[in-house]
């Protein structure tokens, strides 16, 4: 019982349960598959937002190029699905049957070497994790070792996003160009376009999201999480406590990029195509705003942020498309200026304290570890559950 209580506290399980209830029970029951599929799409952005909470909220590393990793994950998955959709029987009318249609249009006569391994689903799954992680490592290792941070890092990630977009569009024989990779049909013979498939993929997406949430929570609760908070304000001190700061930054950035890539892969599966529009600067910045709206220090907040902003975008653009950009812009400015900790900040500072005690999270926000030292050495709290911490960060 104690152990369970401990888990509850440590992972904010009650909050997780509410989210799970919402995503697994309430939404699927109250929505048709069209809307639910949309929710599934929003959730793929939530993966990116969760990653941003880790690397931006906790690590202080703002990346304006998360779309790059979303895209890499998505493209890996899309390459596999496209190869399956381009079987020689399906593409018999082409000059070269058996290669994707856009390659045929671009006069390629054989599959490029880097496409070959994507015939294997196992390799594809590995690639979805490893390719973005490797890419993130290459991009960051030089910079973090040389202590490039903050604004400079943000601008360089932006440039990386620009480079990759131009490359993908320019090398259309290999990548599908600006159209992206479209018309994906089956996964191991299973038609991913049917309603049943959409339901199943939605639940897979939710399950993976919770896996990422738990990994994120674990990282934040670990000493590494506290080190990130420490690094954000006193990088030198961390270094002089004997930690290789760059290694931690590289790790958290790679982790965030892997989360983004999983989101991208789930996007491809649920929506049925992948295109370079995700890799660019604009979607990358939008993903930052999902995270900011939800609260840059709250993993769960990031999920709600992604859901709410996108739901608002969809409903707004159905009724007043012109107003949408105004609303979006105002949202950016408002959140940054008035609520730097987003919805989660509003919740912990304004709403939660007024709730009856039993509705609050199991660990009262004021609990801090030394209580653990004197009473039960097991309990602990997370930085995100501590409103003073968040509030103070707002002023930094």
């Amino acid at each position, binding site marked *: 019982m104690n152990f369970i209580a401990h888990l509850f506290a440590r992972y904010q399980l009650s909050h997780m349960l509410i989210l799970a209830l919402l995503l697994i029970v309430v939404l699927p029951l109250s929505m048709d598959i069209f809307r639910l599929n949309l929710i599934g799409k929003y959730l793929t952005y939530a993966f990116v937002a969760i990653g941003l909470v880790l690397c931006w909220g906790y690590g202080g590393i703002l990346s304006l190029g998360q779309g790059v990793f979303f895209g890499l994950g998505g493209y890996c998955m899309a390459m596999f699905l496209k190869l399956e959709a381009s079987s020689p029987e399906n593409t018999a009318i082409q000059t070269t049957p058996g290669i994707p249609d856009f390659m045929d249009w671009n006069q390629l006569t054989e599959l490029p070497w880097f496409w070959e391994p994507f015939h294997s689903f196992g390799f594809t799954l590995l690639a979805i994790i490893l390719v973005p992680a490797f890419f993130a490592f290459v991009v960051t290792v030089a910079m973090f070792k040389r202590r490039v941070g*903050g604004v400079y890092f943000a601008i360089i990630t932006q440039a990386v996003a620009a480079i990759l977009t131009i490359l993908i569009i320019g090398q259309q024989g290999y990548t599908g160009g600006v159209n992206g990779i479209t018309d994906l049909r089956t996964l191991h013979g299973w038609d991913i376009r049917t309603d049943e498939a959409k339901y199943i993929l939605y639940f897979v997406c939710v399950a993976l999201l919770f896996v990422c949430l738990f990994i994120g929570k674990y990282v934040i609760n670990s000493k590494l999480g506290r080190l990130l908070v420490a690094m954000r304000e006193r990088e030198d001190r961390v270094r002089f406590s004997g930690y290789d700061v760059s290694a931690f930054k590289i790790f958290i950035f790679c982790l965030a990029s892997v989360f983004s890539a999983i989101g991208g892969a789930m996007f491809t599966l649920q929506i049925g195509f992948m295109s370079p529009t995700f890799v660019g600067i604009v979607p990358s*910045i939008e993903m930052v705003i999902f995270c900011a709206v939800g609260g840059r220090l709250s993993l769960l907040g990031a999920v709600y942020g992604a859901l709410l902003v996108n739901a608002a975008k969809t409903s707004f653009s159905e009724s007043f498309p012109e107003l949408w950009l105004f609303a979006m812009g105002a949202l950016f400015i408002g959140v*940054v200026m008035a609520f730097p900790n987003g919805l989660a900040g509003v919740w912990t500072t304004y709403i939660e304290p007024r709730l009856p005690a039993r509705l609050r999270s199991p660990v009262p926000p004021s609990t801090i570890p030394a209580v653990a030292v004197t009473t039960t050495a097991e309990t602990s709290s997370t930085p995100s559950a501590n409103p003073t911490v968040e509030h103070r960060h707002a002023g930094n």
Partner: protein
Amino acid sequence: MFADYTMTELTSIFAMQGFAGLTLFSVFVLMALGLAIIFGQMGVINMAHGEFMILGAYTTYLTSNVFSSYLPESLYSLYFFVALILAFLAAGALGAFIEWAMIRHLYKRPLDTLLATWGLSLIMQQLYRTIFGPREVGVTLPDWLMGSIALTDMVEIPINGLFVMAITLVVAVGVGLTMQKSRLGKQTRAVVQNRPMASAVGINTARVDRLTFALGCGIAGIAGAAFTMIGSTGPTSGQLYIVDTFLVVVFGGASSLVGTIASAFTISQAQSTMEFFLSGSMAKVLTLLVVVGILMLRPQGLFSLKIRK
């Protein structure tokens, strides 16, 4: 690739290509100067910089319309000069307002200025779209700006390119003098180096911030007005410039105006040379890659003093 051409042809092409590089250089300097002031001196990242430029472009468009509708035709050839000044004032005034309403609350959070100004850029884009329509507007140029000077049969120097260079020169010298000699410039540098101390010796730091930001935005406005000669004017045109501009500033070593100019020169020459030998897309990718690569190895940029931390 040159075997089929005569020496004269090659010489003239290289001359023209050099000029093309210089034009690109001027364009980069104009784009980057305003940003270099705001980012380099104040540490604020203005993602709406492109939209301030387009404000200048729309101001030029409006001025041209007013001149052609209400003023005698003889004055029309001069409208561009009026437009340049109006563009500076319009963008500067908006900049001052934005600084007051938004930026000054965020000085301690540079990454957040980035997000807030991105929001601002969305709003400005939609405003342009609502006011001027989603289509590009055609800015009519006075005739004297349109032609070219033929030096030889092959070598023709575009007048608007020369004019852009002239504007760039004037603006760059003006900014240099302002920052080095004028009261505002000295105060700005004082505030950059030590804000509390500057405040203690009686400098109104809030006013300096506002004027610096307004100056940066005003220069963006001039850049936008100048770009009507060579580029398009539409609600989203500004976004095209933002990545290039930031890279020029960062590559130059953010706090140094000389660095910005040197970096604009390096990048523009590299890009224009590569464009000639490779395809346009690959030239762009290669230029960006080299710049990013160098920045990874030398994060402080081309020009920066080695200082005690």
